[in-house]
């Protein structure tokens, strides 16, 4: 008889991600991913000036503000066939890179490392032994015995106080935790340092975007940064130098700490290369445009359909194949509608029925590409690039594979990337690529300004006839697309197909599971009442469902519940 486990963070008023699994013989035999909130935010945009849409869309989500702003201006530019001057492309690219680096670092350390790292083992660690282990792994200068001892003292103080504070209710001592006390200590010390370096990345976003969390420098057709190399108030050499040095510090942290830690964790949990594959269709859009037209990109895009093999490349960020192949199915989502609809004619009319795994069970629609569920995110981007032979992707993917093999004495093949660990590895690979590209785009910007080009915007002209556009961005969580229809200079329809919608998708009318659901099938559970293994796989996708209410609930009802029936 299957046991049913529900993991449901009963958050605030609306809701977040809920996972239901059935467990038989200590392994997951069925899975449902659902979202307990209704969005429908897009309706607010109808009738508004398309040039203002990005100000609203960047409020969709507090984690992903810049990405929704960027996709929105790109959608309107696509509809207006408006080119973006090189300076604006580079400035936007630097913002996107810095935001992604912040996001990937926080994801690994703050949002998922404690699925693998057992805090309560740290008091047993020998800091000297941990320091010499660290030295064998990385040239990072902040792995000294003293630094590690200080980190251990922090944990000891927390443990001695009897109040675990930020570490309350982790699955400490769980049989699936397998790192040595020294590795746990090392990882925790980097957890603390990560808080510092993610902030440096955010500082870059703030300096170029003039504000965080909501950047102010975007405009349809370009950016609003005034460029003047000699002025301290405009974007000048002082600011640019500061940006370069912050990006360098973050790059060092990524290469010497984050990348190494992911490889080390992977090497010590090699069985997790065989768990969590799921949907093997991948989708990524090209990003980091190198020219005004958007005909060359530093991040490749395309798709892989498991049934057809081989990658297919997208030439541009609004490639005709992409434009024509996306639809959203609501057979298992709480919306009205009979057939899958293209986003330009998408509808968002709620029909709430209550959770029913056989029928409707989620507020997330089921996006499909050529009718298939697709996995998006860093893994999709890395696999799409790797299979196309993209040099930068290959460079860091091979570096990661070699590093895991040398630490763990385990044979790793590219095929093993279809897994829970593969998603972490791909995110680290992507971060290393972005850290390198940050330097390149900084140089492109400086060289272009030095040529005397100070242009930052092409002014938009809104036609009266109906036009439609799609704006894409390969965001930290994967392919994001905003779809806009403009008529009489006003927004007629607007739909955002966000990365977590692809990954958290419910089943479609043919019964095909979405990526979270499919990836959980067969996951072993040591203790079903403490489903750490389910969280490992779900967290590996970097879910972000909270484009919703953020009301603080003082009763503490935001705390998640784990129910075993």
């Amino acid at each position, binding site marked *: 008889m299957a046991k049913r486990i529900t*993991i449901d*963070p009963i*958050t*605030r*008023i*609306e809701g*977040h*991600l809920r996972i239901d699994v059935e467990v038989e013989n200590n392994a997951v035999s069925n899975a449902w991913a659902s979202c307990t909130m209704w969005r429908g*935010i897009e*309706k*607010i945009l109808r009738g*508004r*000036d398309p*040039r*203002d849409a990005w*100000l*609203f869309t960047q*409020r969709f989500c*507090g984690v992903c503000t810049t990405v929704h702003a960027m996709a929105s201006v790109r959608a309107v530019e696509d509809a207006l066939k408006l080119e973006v001057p090189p300076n604006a492309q580079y400035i936007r690219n630097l913002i996107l890179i810095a935001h992604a680096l912040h996001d990937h670092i*926080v*994801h690994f350390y*703050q*949002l998922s490392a404690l699925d693998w790292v057992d805090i309560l083992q740290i008091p047993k660690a020998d800091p000297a032994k941990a320091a010499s282990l660290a030295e064998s792994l990385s040239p990072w200068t902040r792995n000294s015995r003293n630094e590690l001892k200080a980190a251990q003292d922090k944990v000891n103080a*927390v443990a001695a106080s009897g109040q*675990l*504070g*930020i570490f*309350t*209710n982790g699955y400490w001592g769980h049989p699936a935790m397998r790192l040595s006390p020294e590795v746990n200590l090392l990882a925790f010390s980097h957890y*603390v340092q990560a*808080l510092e370096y*993610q*902030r440096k990345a*955010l500082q870059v976003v703030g300096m170029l975007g003039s504000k965080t*969390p*909501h950047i*102010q*420098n*975007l*405009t349809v057709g370009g950016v609003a940064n005034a460029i003047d190399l000699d002025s301290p108030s405009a974007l000048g050499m002082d600011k640019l130098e500061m940006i370069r040095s912050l990006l360098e510090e973050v790059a060092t942290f990524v290469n010497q700490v984050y990348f190494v830690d992911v490889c080390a964790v992977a090497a010590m949990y090699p069985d997790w290369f065989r768990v969590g594959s799921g949907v093997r269709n991948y989708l990524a859009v090209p990003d980091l445009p190198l020219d005004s037209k958007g005909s060359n990109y530093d991040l490749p895009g395309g798709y892989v359909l498991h049934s057809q093999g081989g990658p297919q490349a997208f030439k541009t960020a609004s490639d005709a194949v992409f434009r024509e192949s996306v639809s959203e199915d609501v057979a298992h989502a709480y919306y009205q509608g009979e057939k899958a609809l293209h986003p330009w004619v998408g509808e968002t009319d709620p029909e709430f029925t209550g959770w029913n795994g056989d029928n409707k069970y989620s507020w997330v629609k089921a996006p499909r590409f050529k009718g298939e569920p697709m996995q998006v995110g860093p893994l999709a981007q890395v696999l799409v690039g790797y299979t196309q032979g993209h040099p930068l992707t290959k460079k860091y993917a091979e570096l990661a594979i070699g590093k895991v093999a040398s630490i763990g004495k385990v044979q790793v093949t590219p095929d093993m990337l279809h897994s829970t660990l593969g998603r972490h590895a791909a995110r680290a690979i992507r971060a290393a690529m972005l850290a390198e590209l940050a330097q390149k785009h900084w140089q492109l910007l400086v060289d272009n300004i030095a040529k005397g080009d100070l242009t930052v915007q092409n002014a938009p002209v809104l036609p009266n006839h109906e036009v439609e556009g799609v704006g894409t961005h390969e965001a930290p969580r994967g392919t994001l697309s905003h779809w806009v229809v403009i008529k009489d200079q006003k927004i007629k329809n607007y739909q955002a197909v966000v990365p977590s919608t692809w990954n958290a998708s419910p089943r479609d009318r043919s019964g095909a599971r979405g990526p979270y659901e499919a990836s959980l099938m067969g996951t072993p559970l040591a203790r079903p009442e403490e489903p750490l293994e389910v*969280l490992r796989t*779900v967290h590996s996708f970097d*879910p*972000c*469902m*909270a484009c*919703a*209410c*953020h*009301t*603080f*609930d*003082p*009763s*503490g*009802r*935001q*705390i*998640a519940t*784990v129910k075993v029936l």
Partner: protein
Amino acid sequence: MKKVLIGGVGNILLGDDGVGPYVLRLLEAMYEFGPGAETVDLGTPALDLLYRIAGLDLLILIDAVDDGERPGTVTAYRKADLIEHARTVRMDPHSSALSESLLAAELLDNGPQDVVLVGITIGTCDSGCSLSDAVEKAVGAAIRMVLEELDRHRVPYTRRFGVRPDIWWAHDCQPHPA
């Protein structure tokens, strides 16, 4: 000079959830604050809140709350109230961002000395850019609570007139900042 941050928290696209940023923009228009005191519309923050609150003497957050009181009730919550419900299982970066940022700041030994959350009990959080009547009526009380807190900490501010609050989302869209 005390380091003070006054932050409006909430989603302006979801009805009453946007009351935090709304009150914040009113405060910014109506008062001038001394050097050391910063006001910011935080939107719906995650752990990025951490670097905003590091090293502060006083953190004042204005936020929508769901505390079972009548819509429009204004209640002060203190640091202990905010961190007492530590996280259990977290699914995504937003869950308990507020408590967790405070706890992470404590871990780094640079948390704010004093924290108050000016909570306004919400009515509805349906998608839309305006406040319900009950919550709109509570705006004055929320502003007074913020000022009282500043007085208690002897943080100076002066009333000013003639500045239009920048609540661009609540009206038909104002020209964008570019």
